[in-house]
Each structure stands twice: as structure tokens, then as C-alpha cells.
């Protein structure tokens, strides 16, 4: 019985993905972790190069490596990461050649805030989902700028009995959750406006 064309593609993709993982590491679990780090790293690189479709580009790199793998796996010498990097560099060059000029500008920030912005309203809503100590940590962490900020972080780390580095990490994770929540909240607001 012949497989429909779409299924053959899926089977081939699965096989290629399996070979890719094996190439990264013979241990399946470690290979999975390496794959995740590579994909996230690619997204970070593409965003840093100014691409708004960073996730798609990261997947393009991975697909290209998967396609070439049968030809290179026996001859390629060195860390696979370097190969991914090389492909990413090529894609950056190719994409830059046909890239549209960005027209969107960075939103301006007034020094004086006249009224509550949607972002602020969403922040207040999202903070309510955090436990009290987490809410206090993220707000206390961001309460000052400049030198006062450095001093404040030192006090906070001391009070919590952790290093300043660990405090930075905690604040970063909390900010990540807030960021996600604020994004969803703003999307919700935009959706409601459309309905109205």
C-alpha cells in the first residue's frame, strides 16, 4: 500500500529530525536539550539582527541543516553548533539582500506621564496574578534607576540572603511571566476594541 504524499513528507521529516538529534548527541535526552538551546540561540541571534520573523528563520536554519545532514554527517569535523552558526550567517546575508526596509519606528516616551496607559493598566492587572512576595520582589527590583538601583539590588539580595546574580535571575524570570501576561492582556484589549 502506497503512502499519500503528505504522509511520506512527515515520515521523512521525522526521520531527518531523529538523525539530527543523533548527530547532536547519541544520548536522546542530552540531544533534546542541545536542540532547544540551539533553536533559542538562533532566535536570539535573528532578533539581534533586527528580524521580526526570527522564529521562522530559526526553523529555516534547522530545516536546511536537516536536509544537508545526509551529505555532511560522515565528513563534517567539529562541533555541530558551528555548522548551525554558518547556516544562520548565510540566511542572514540572503535575507538582508531581499529584506524590506522597516518603517515602524520605536515608540517615543514622554518624560511626563499624563494618564494611565494600556500597558500600565495591564501591568497592574497582571501583578494581581503574582503571589505577594513575588509581586513585591519585581516592583522593588525596578523601583530605582541609576546608582540607587544598584544600591537597592544590593539591599534586596542581602535581605533575601542570596547573591545579586541570583536576584537578577529571579527578577528576570518574574519579568518574563509578566511580559507574557501583559502581551495577552494587550491583545485582549485590542480584540475588545475591534468588537466595539
Amino acid at each position: 500500500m502506497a503512502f499519500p504524499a503528505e504522509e511520506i513528507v512527515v515520515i521523512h521529516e521525522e526521520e531527518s529530525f531523529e538523525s539530527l538529534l543523533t548527530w547532536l548527541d547519541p544520548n536522546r535526552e542530552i540531544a533534546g536539550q542541545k536542540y532547544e538551546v540551539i533553536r533559542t540561540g538562533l532566535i536570539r541571534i535573528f532578533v539581534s539582527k533586527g528580524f521580526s520573523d526570527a522564529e521562522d528563520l530559526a526553523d529555516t536554519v534547522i530545516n536546511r541543516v536537516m536536509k544537508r545532514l545526509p551529505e555532511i554527517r560522515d565528513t563534517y569535523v567539529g562541533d555541530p553548533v558551528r555548522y548551525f552558526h554558518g547556516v544562520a550567517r548565510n540566511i542572514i546575508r540572503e535575507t538582508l539582500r531581499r529584506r524590506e526596509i522597516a518603517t515602524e519606528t520605536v515608540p517615543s516616551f514622554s518624560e511626563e506621564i499624563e494618564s494611565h496607559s494600556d500597558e500600565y493598566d495591564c501591568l497592574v492587572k497582571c501583578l494581581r496574578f503574582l503571589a505577594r512576595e513575588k509581586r513585591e520582589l519585581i516592583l522593588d527590583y525596578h523601583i530605582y534607576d541609576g546608582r540607587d538601583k544598584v544600591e537597592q539590588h544590593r539591599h534586596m539580595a542581602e535581605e533575601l540572603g542570596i547573591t545579586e546574580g541570583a536576584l537578577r535571575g529571579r527578577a528576570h524570570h518574574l519579568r518574563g511571566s509578566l511580559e507574557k501576561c501583559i502581551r495577552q492582556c494587550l491583545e485582549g484589549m485590542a480584540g475588545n476594541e475591534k468588537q466595539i
Partner: protein
Amino acid sequence: MGGGAIINNTDKTELKEYLLGRLHDPDEERVETRLLSDPQYGEEFDIVVDELTDQYVAGEIQGAERGEMERHFFAAAARRQKLKVASALKEHKQHLRGGRRWVPSRELKIAASILIVFGLAFGAWWISRGDSDDLNKGVLALQTAYRDQRPLEPRISALAHSPFAQKRGAEVNDSMKDNLRLAELHLAQAVKVKPTAAAHHELGKVFLAQGKFDEAMQQFDESLKANPNDAQTYNDRGVAWLQKGDFNRSLEDFNKALQIDSHLNEALFNRALCYEKQARPEAAQADWNEYLKRDGSSPWAAEARQHLSHR
């Protein structure tokens, strides 16, 4: 897959340079291959992104560097998205401080620089009393918290009048809670650095406003150990007892406060409230009348009149 090599300050600086598009090819390649293999480095990268975004939003990055950042760092939509969170946090900060930022002119900045030079000597002295700075900031945050409404009916010493918010818990406004928290942070630091009677007293007042009556009382007790003749501290401890429902101890403290300073209007006002709670209407009426003799026109007097008229 290990946790990656330790991230040092050179790595952090290099990440910042990479993010601002200032690295040459070989260095850029080193950063990028490490991003593809070291998860800890990747996390550090994200933190530096957040920090740069905050610095941009705070106006700490100016001039050509700011323009460079807008062209390079914020070119991708994902980065511009991050601005939303950073600006919301900045807005929160501004609401919390209750103030508006003032942008000085160039001339004023120069004048300020000159003053800074003269201020260095003063600064050396000031550093030696950093606790006072925290004490002042804490007191200011407490006053700001009380600006629009007060969470307790009795009078906490040396705070201006604001209407009593009869709502409780989550309904008390967020700005007040945040300012009280800010006051707590500063005053806890002041107590830690230099546990003076004043620092303990002010921290106790913050706890009182937060409804943490036991913690408040601990601070007032510490303050009274160092300064046993402070009428205001007795008044405030009396408020804590009153809120806890121990009217006898509350009355003792208000009496003690008035014994030390018979002109302390806060204590007289609070004693009248205490008598009301004790169902002693005549004693309450006498205190309200006495209060109105001393203060006939303030918003506190208006409240005293209301109490008299509700009898």
C-alpha cells in the same frame, strides 16, 4: 549539557556590545556560537536585553547612542514589544513616587555640575549619615501614602489630614499600598543601619498604616526604650492598641501622651475615639469639645464635629 561556563563581567560587557551592534566579526562569531551552546549565557543575554531596555526607557541612554540603539537594538518587533513592559514599569515607578519628572535645560545641567563639585565635601559628610537619607525617604513615602486617604480612623502622629477610607483589604488603593511598601523598605534599612528611636518610631507608623499592629507595637516599644518620654510614640502605640481592640491599654497610652505633652492634639482626638469605643459618651463628648476649643477649623475639627453630632 552542562550549565555552561561562569558568566563574568567581561562577558556581560561583550554581550552589551553585541546587542548594540558594536562587535567585529570574530568577536560576534564567538558570542553567537556561545549563544547556541550555553544556556546560562543565553539567560544572561536575555537579562542584559531587559537591562538595556530599562536604561533606554529611563532616559539613561542619550544622544547618538540612543539613536544607534533605536536603529539596531529595537529593529525587531520582539524588542519593541519589550518596551511595553519597561514603560509600564516606569509608569508604575512614577505613580509610586507621586511626582512628575522634571527635565532640566542644558544650562541648568551645567550649573548643577558646578554645584556637584562644591557638593563633594558635603557628600562625604552625607555618606556618613546614609541612614538619615533612608529615614527621610521613608517618611516622605509614608506622607505620600497618606495623601489621598487614610486607612485608619485614629490619628497617627505628624501626618496631615486625609479622608478616612472605610474600605478594607484589597479595596484600599494600590498606590497607597505601594507607597507604604516603599516607606517600609527605606525605614527598615534606616533601622538596620542606625536603630534610633526616630527610625523605630517611623517604621512603627508604617506598620500601623499597613494594619500590622503587632509589628508596629514592637517598633514603638523599641523606640520608647531609647526615648521613654516621647508623647507621639505613646500616641501611636495607643492607636495600635485601639485597632487591636484593647481599649484600656489604648487609653493608658493616650493619657501618658497627654501627660507628657498636653498640647498633642492627635492624642486628644484619639482618646475621644477610644472613649466612644468604651461606650463612655460623656467622656468622649468632653474630649471632642476640648478638641474643638483647640482646633476649630481644620478637617480634623470637621470630623470631631461629626462625632459630636452623631451622639
